């Protein structure tokens, strides 16, 4: 049978943080275009390189067991603005409940690397 794409893993490098994304679990919009499900065409969820949706924040278990959900977000880096206006990554912190006085955590966006095609199909030439 032909190849399929049931799961795509995206590896995101952010200062040692790795995220596993199951495509089927994430609904994305691309560049402002909405998914359109017309007559009998298949609605597909996809994670596109330009996705602006952020994965839902999940507090991982504290027992150290592997999180079995679709998204593994531990540890989540917290980006703290520096006085100069730039940003620097804080060291990875233990999961904790955010209080209202804390700055909201900026969750790193998944970066999917678009593979280069090995060839292109076209009408015979």
């Amino acid at each position, binding site marked *: *049978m*032909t*190849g*399929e*794409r049931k799961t795509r893993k995206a590896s995101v490098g952010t200062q040692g943080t790795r995220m596993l994304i199951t495509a089927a679990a994430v609904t994305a919009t*691309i560049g402002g*275009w909405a*998914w*359109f*499900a*017309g*007559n*009998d*065409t*298949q609605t*597909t969820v*996809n994670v*596109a390189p330009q996705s602006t949706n952020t994965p839902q924040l999940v507090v991982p278990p504290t027992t150290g067991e592997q999180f079995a959900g679709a998204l593994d977000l531990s540890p989540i880096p917290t980006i703290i603005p520096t006085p100069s206006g730039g940003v620097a990554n804080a060291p990875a912190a233990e999961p904790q409940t955010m209080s209202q006085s804390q700055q909201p955590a900026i969750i790193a966006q998944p970066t999917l690397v*678009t*593979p*280069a*095609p*090995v*060839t*292109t*199909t*076209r*009408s*015979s*030439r």
Partner: protein
Amino acid sequence: MQRIEFRAMGGQILAIVDTHGEQALDCLQATPRWFAVWERTFSRFDKQSELSRLNRNAGRTVRVSPELWEVIAESVRAAQRSAGLVTPTLLAELEQAGYAESFSRSVAPESEQSEATDAAASSEQHVNVLPAYGNWKSITLYARTRSIRVPHGMRLDLGGVAKGWAAEQAADHLSRHGPALVDAGGDIAVSGPRADGSPWPIGIANPFDPDAQLDMILIGHGGVATSGRDYRRWRKHGDWQHHIIDPHTGRPATTDLVSVTVIAPSVREAEVAAKAAFILGSRDGLAWIDEQPALAALLVGENGRLLRSRQFARYAWSSVGYALDT
């Protein structure tokens, strides 16, 4: 990953085997020889090819090579699968339309038909005694003796299946050394996932801008083929002609599609399905593809509209699409 590129069968051939080593390289370097042998067997442009000799003996039972037997048998199966839309019996109609010589030797595809080519087509034209649609049923194959009888007045053209067959054979041979992909002029056979387990990323060319891509698909095994009128076309008496003949009319198909790309369990099936859907047009072609869950397709309308079949999203890197308004 090792690869080789060369020209054969009127098109550009690419063969890749995803492994290192001398044996894989030796096998890869043998690929052009295989295609040369197959071209001498299947080419209607070569007057000394085995196919041309079979065509000159129409009305007689002729014993043929295993390769020619296999490809003609496959072309008959293709006609069955496509309800006669893709048939090997249209050589006279192709020549009548003006496709009398290989595009690799002809002038630029968008040029006017030359008087010389017109004269050549007329002088070689044979009149089919049977109407084109359905006449493939009168081809007789004798499996025990590997013999074929083509009815008197009929001549065969294997352009609908030969390239896909060759791509599949080559990928099969190469796969003994590692995962292989063979692209024969846009008809692509994939033997299995790449060495790292990932599917092969394959672009789909934009027929309106061949340097651009419409989408990219990921194929782990099987084949993909594209049929269209964007490249093999020419002017005859001021009118555009192309090479995909509708057997109902005996003329280049009148269709609202510019190209059709099909993904299938094999490149042979993809090749046939792409031609059939192209002839059927956007509405019936898409419906026909959707009736077959093993197939997935991207259809490009002459107005630039993209139509994706139900299964296409399984393979597409980007699945944004539009539904056909009904």
